[in-house]
């Protein structure tokens, strides 16, 4: 069977940022303590005319441009998100017209908290591997919600990443994948509820760590990998502490994890979180590098993937498409009032 993998990637981070101390000023928290707890200095904020759909379109367009891919050869589109503008009406169908795909495309939106963008990756891999489609695309996109005055607000941010999977022009070959899922309600949002609920400490050991470690360890044991095999390791990043602790629990040196960390600058982009770290690493990876990617979604579950970077990555890096590092520097600060207005959190006449 011919090798398949990520042919191209694209990322989008809105320009606006709000600083932790600006949020803490409003809600009476000690900003130094918050930064120390979460290692989040700023988070990205979507503009008043942006949403999970517009972010998905931008990320997807960049992936297509980077790979020089004819959109009409894409046969599947998956969108993983937990901030859809509609409870019923897919983002994936909007992508079909926004990207100029044909009508013969398998398209669906997926939900598994922050993991769904990577579940779209699994699904795309399946169809491509079976030879049913030439290219499959997944997009993780969110303008994630955090209840004002509550700690999630410090990290819940906005961004999107698109990955295109195929057999032709592969920049990062898929070597292995594994999953670890259980019914663990660490964080959820009921239908109609504006903000999620979460279990504070319960989101740690029983949820994030159990499943991230479970997936990573399970993959390494099943396929015979050691930490030293990997050049980069990218975890889901709800804050700056969790991925570092996960690395130490797996005996993975910190310098392999650091290059993929984005949460300190932009917060937790939910479905784009781990994928954003993956994109950042792909922006600098060299042929032969091995990458372990472990997204996590509350509820709970983790996927684990191993990719080996090929020579093609050099062409992709030179394609003239904005890199994650460039986007991290491209920012305009806003205050809390502008933040509320842009995130459409102020009650207006309908």
């Amino acid at each position: 069977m011919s090798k398949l993998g990520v042919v191209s990637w694209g990322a989008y981070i809105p320009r606006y940022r709000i600083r932790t101390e600006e949020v803490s000023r409003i809600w009476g928290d000690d900003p130094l303590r918050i930064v120390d707890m979460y290692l989040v200095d700023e988070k990205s904020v979507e503009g008043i005319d942006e949403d999970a759909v517009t972010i998905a379109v931008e990320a997807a367009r960049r992936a297509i441009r980077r790979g020089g891919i004819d959109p009409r050869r894409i046969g599947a589109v998956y969108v993983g998100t937990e901030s859809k503008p509609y409870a019923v009406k897919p983002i994936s169908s909007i992508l079909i017209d926004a990207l100029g795909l044909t009508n013969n495309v398998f398209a669906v939106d997926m939900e598994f908290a922050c993991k769904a963008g990577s579940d779209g990756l699994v699904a795309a891999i399946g169809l491509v591997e079976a030879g049913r489609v030439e290219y499959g695309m997944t997009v993780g996109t969110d303008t994630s919600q955090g209840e004002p005055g509550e700690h999630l607000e410090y990290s819940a941010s906005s961004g999107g990443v698109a990955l295109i999977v195929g057999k032709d022009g592969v920049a990062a070959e898929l070597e292995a994948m594994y999953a670890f899922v259980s019914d663990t309600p660490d964080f959820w949002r009921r239908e109609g509820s504006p903000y999620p609920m979460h279990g504070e400490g319960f989101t740690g050991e029983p949820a994030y760590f159990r499943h991230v470690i479970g997936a990573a360890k399970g993959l390494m044991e099943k396929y015979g990998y050691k930490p030293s095999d990997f050049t980069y390791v990218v975890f889901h990043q709800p804050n700056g502490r969790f991925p570092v602790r996960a690395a130490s629990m797996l005996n993975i040196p910190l310098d392999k994890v650091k290059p993929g960390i984005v949460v300190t600058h932009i917060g937790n982009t939910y479905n784009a979180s781990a994928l954003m770290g993956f994109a950042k690493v792909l922006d600098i990876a060299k042929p032969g590098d091995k990458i372990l990617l472990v997204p996590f979604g509350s509820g709970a579950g983790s996927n684990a993937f191993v990719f080996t970077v090929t020579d093609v990555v050099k062409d992709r890096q030179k394609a003239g498409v904005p890199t994650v590092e460039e986007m991290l520097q491209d920012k305009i600060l806003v205050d809390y009032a502008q933040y509320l207005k842009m995130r459409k959190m102020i009650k207006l006449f309908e």
Partner: protein
Amino acid sequence: MKHESVPIYWRNIPQYYRLVAKRCKKCGTIYFPPVAKCKCGSVELEDYELPREGRLLEYTVLYQVGTDFLKQKPLVLGLVELDGGVKVSGQIVDARPERLKPGVKVEVVFRRVVVDGKHGLVMYGYKFRPVERL
């Protein structure tokens, strides 16, 4: 229940999403908005997606806005010359107006244009933003 016309939005999606213009096969003139007949007389017009980068020609900052934009004022509205020479008009976003000036490089972005209340459709379309943060 009253809501904005869906067909009016839907049939313009190729233009709103991908700036699909018409190009005359006979003389090469490009029309955006699209037309049915070229000034040269030909009716052989093909779809042509406009380039997505260009330069700002001029802009204004509008304070007296219509109902759909009351919560977004002021609107920065401008004329852009896309690569290849076709001019289009639209909103300029993600930029502080005092830093804009003619010649600034801009790119096409996909954004919300109008939201039909709490229950209606979210309508999207093209806008322009400076390539470099301004």
